[in-house]
């Protein structure tokens, strides 16, 4: 059995190889390393804290089941993020919010998910900026720039036309650019929130 300090210093790919032979301590080390990133992505996509943790757990469990499929072409973290992002989209669609893809295009979100909730060591401006996007824009932008999906992959995951996804991404990017620019909305928000 490989000990804790050895696992802590092992490379992700070594841990993946150990986990592929059923090594749960090695997989635990991977969860320790990348759990926050996956949970953070779920929150940025719009999940509240409990749902984000739930989905991230499911994603890691699915990753353990499918670990033989991981070929090391990208990073382990990116791979799990893609799994988690698809799980989030599945749940989002199941909860009949998929119609928001069409209805709320271009609208600003008035009720940011997770606004004011703590839990992270430090806040990142991106979190605030994302809360200003419509849900569909937020999901599309997060899928493409947070989970690394192509527009086509995001469209397939959302079961939406490619053109619609591209529109949401473009509108989302425009809003984020304005909010994240030094003299944009984000700058004003940062002053307000200190």
């Amino acid at each position: 059995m490989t000990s804790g300090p050895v696992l802590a210093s092992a490379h992700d790919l070594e841990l993946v190889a150990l986990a592929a032979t059923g090594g749960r301590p090695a997989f635990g080390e991977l969860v320790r390393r990348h759990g926050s990133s996956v949970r953070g992505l779920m929150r940025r996509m719009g999940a509240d804290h409990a749902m984000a943790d739930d989905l991230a757990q499911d994603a890691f469990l699915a990753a353990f089941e499918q670990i033989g499929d991981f070929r090391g072409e990208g990073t382990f973290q990116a791979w799990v993020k893609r799994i988690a992002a698809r799980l989030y989209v599945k749940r989002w669609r199941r909860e009949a919010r998929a119609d928001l893809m069409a209805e709320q295009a271009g609208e600003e979100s008035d009720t940011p998910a997770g606004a004011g909730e703590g839990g992270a060591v430090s806040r990142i401006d991106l979190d605030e900026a994302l809360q200003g996007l419509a849900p569909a824009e937020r999901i599309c932008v997060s899928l493409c720039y947070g989970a690394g999906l192509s527009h086509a992959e995001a469209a397939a995951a959302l079961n939406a036309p490619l053109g619609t996804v591209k529109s949401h991404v473009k509108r989302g990017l425009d809003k984020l650019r304005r909010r994240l620019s030094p003299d944009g909305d984000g700058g004003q928000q940062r002053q307000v929130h200190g």
Partner: protein
Amino acid sequence: MAEASFEGRLERMFAETPAMRDADLFTLQVVDKLDRGWTARRLLIGVMGAAGGVIGSAQILGSGVIGHIQALSAQSNAYLLQHVSQAIPQGLLPAGVALNGQVIWMAAALAVVAAGLGLARGIREI
């Protein structure tokens, strides 16, 4: 150019997730779920194996296959004695050991074990 630059910046911002305060608790929860899943799976496999074993044994015993095997064994013993005893040179067997079906089967089993050990040793050397 500015668009690509902003997209790159956005990807970097997405990648910069701060460590969560309860990261260790989250890890424990995932590992605990994994362990529970494995325990449940092992139990399920064990129960299914035991049930399958019981059903299989009952089927084998009920089909009278034991009697068939005994009959086949007796036939094969007679066949082996007839043919193998002619092929083995005189004096090869230790004194006091009579050549019969049991001795032949035992020798065959020992040969299989020896071949298995040799194979295992060979794999280890490779």
